[in-house]
């Protein structure tokens, strides 16, 4: 893992869909400017988003805006060079695709390639698909060091004061209106109450740190001076 300005999150399609549906595309630029987090998605996830029958057309304009302003990036070979700077052996797109292909036998294409990138780059992934995670666990497959949910991002931004209470309630309202699946504690409560029950996996600390206890343990970011 890099220093305070060298954290990468790899986003899966279901998490990105919720972020865009919730109107929180600025989350990527806030994560980058305030906490040094660079947000990436795999090419396969980009295809999934654009071809999503239910929300593809709805989220496409915001997806393109974030890709264009660079706050969200397609993971490329050049990015891998910088992300793998501090790793003992370099990681290539070919390596990620090879592991992704293996994982794609068991879970959806988006999750497979997202988690493959997270594992090889030793970086957190953002995916809401708990069923895919459980499937990989049951099959004894390795998982990324940390797996965040879209609500960990929302909860984190809320707790850090980057989004206010009204905006937070709007996120919940919008996702409910779109019939999106929500963490248990948030289904029947307000955002401010429900977010306390979901054990947010993203927090701030004095330094960037991932827990060694498992993928669901908190990941700590450091706010930039």
């Amino acid at each position, binding site marked *: 893992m890099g220093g305070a300005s060298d954290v990468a999150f790899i986003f899966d399609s279901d998490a990105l869909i919720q972020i865009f549906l919730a109107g929180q595309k600025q989350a990527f630029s806030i994560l980058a400017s305030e906490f040094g987090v660079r947000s990436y998605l*795999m*090419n*396969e996830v*980009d*295809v999934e988003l654009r071809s*999503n*029958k*239910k929300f593809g057309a709805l989220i496409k304009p915001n997806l393109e805006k974030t890709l264009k302003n660079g706050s969200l990036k397609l993971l490329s070979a050049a990015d891998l060079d910088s992300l793998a700077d501090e790793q003992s052996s370099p990681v290539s797109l070919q390596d990620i*695709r090879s592991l*992704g*292909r293996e994982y*794609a*036998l*068991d*879970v*959806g*294409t*988006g*999750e*497979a*390639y997202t988690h493959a990138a997270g594992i090889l780059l030793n970086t957190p992934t953002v995916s809401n*698909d*708990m*069923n*895919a995670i*459980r*499937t*990989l666990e*049951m*099959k004894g497959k390795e998982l990324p060091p940390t797996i965040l949910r879209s609500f960990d991002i929302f909860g984190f931004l809320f707790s850090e004061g980057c989004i206010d209470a009204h905006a937070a309630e709007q996120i919940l309202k919008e996702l409910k209106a779109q019939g999106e*699946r929500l963490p248990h504690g948030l289904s029947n409560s307000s955002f401010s109450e429900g977010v306390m029950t979901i054990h947010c996996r993203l927090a701030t600390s004095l330094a960037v740190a991932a827990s060694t206890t498992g993928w669901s343990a908190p990941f700590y970011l450091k706010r930039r001076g």
Partner: protein
Amino acid sequence: MPPAYASVLAAALGVKPEVMTSRALVSARCSQKIEPASIWFKFRGDQFRDADRESILAIRRLGHSANELEQSTLGQPNRAWDILFQNIMSQVDIQSSPQDQGRLAAKAFCELNQFGHGGKGSADILRDRLRSQGILLIESPIPHSEVEGCSFYVGESSAERPCLFVNTYKTTWFRRNVIIMHELGHALFDKTSGGEIDIIIKDDSEMNKDSLIEVRAETFAQETLLPKKLLLAICHRNGLKPTTLMPEGLGVLVAESGVEKKTVVRALLDQSLIDDALAHQYLAYDIADILRGLTDHALDTAEYIRKIGKEAAMAWEGKRLTSLTRRKLLLPVPYVKAVLDAVKTFNISISRGAELLMIDEYTFHSRFGELAAEVTE
């Protein structure tokens, strides 16, 4: 194109994945060497419609998915068919006549698969038998198509498997059994041809009797479903004589063998159990009503639903149709069951299950909500 999608498309088209890269396409375009895989070469004629080609594309994708499902659940694709085919072909002299080749292959097939044992027809077991050998069998309607059935290989060369397709549009179960075994005959004998397509023919005179491969496949189908000893066993059990069949007797032969009237009469003739005049007479019998009283397989959809009850009939209603393919494909029940079982046992995730069923995740949740709730708790 992301390689993950290129490999699926390549498998469906029957080309190597590297061909799908933009560099390879540009290079092929410049050298004017874009040549179709053999199955598409065969589907290039005017008699085929877009619906035919789109259905074949979806079927080829299904073949690829079936391989991947087995890789995920069993560790490797089921290649039992390969051993079966080798065993059969070791008993066939390819220098003999097409009829003899078909006959010998049918005899070997029946022995290896216990077809016709106990003097009983094999139509009820043939689908399970073929699928358990790793053969992909798809029965799905393509309305207004000339294609009655076709046979080709799907999957990458290291994991290829025979795929038999039968167009169910306006056909009977009894006819489809013959088509399935005919297509199996092609898969067995004509692998190197890259696939065979059979067009709907109105009567026997249209059949290409000069074609070695058609005669061989037809003989194979007839001899696997209606060997002489089976015809005689059914007659004996029901107190029938082949030379004095009334419509009721012919109906019994069709019902118990599970084979359409036309093929039953031709088998009686080919086995010298009747002469041409009797064959002509039997073909004129109207046995539709008799058949409905003898077997559920002769009932039309409305009659069948009335008989087994709406609830049982609707168990799979609306749950097998693909939605992400341009041409909707009715997936085989055993395949859908295998995917759902894999989801239930956490061998694959819901999102992967949806991909294999060629539907999106939202559709998966709406079709299989109970299972989805169970595995996402």
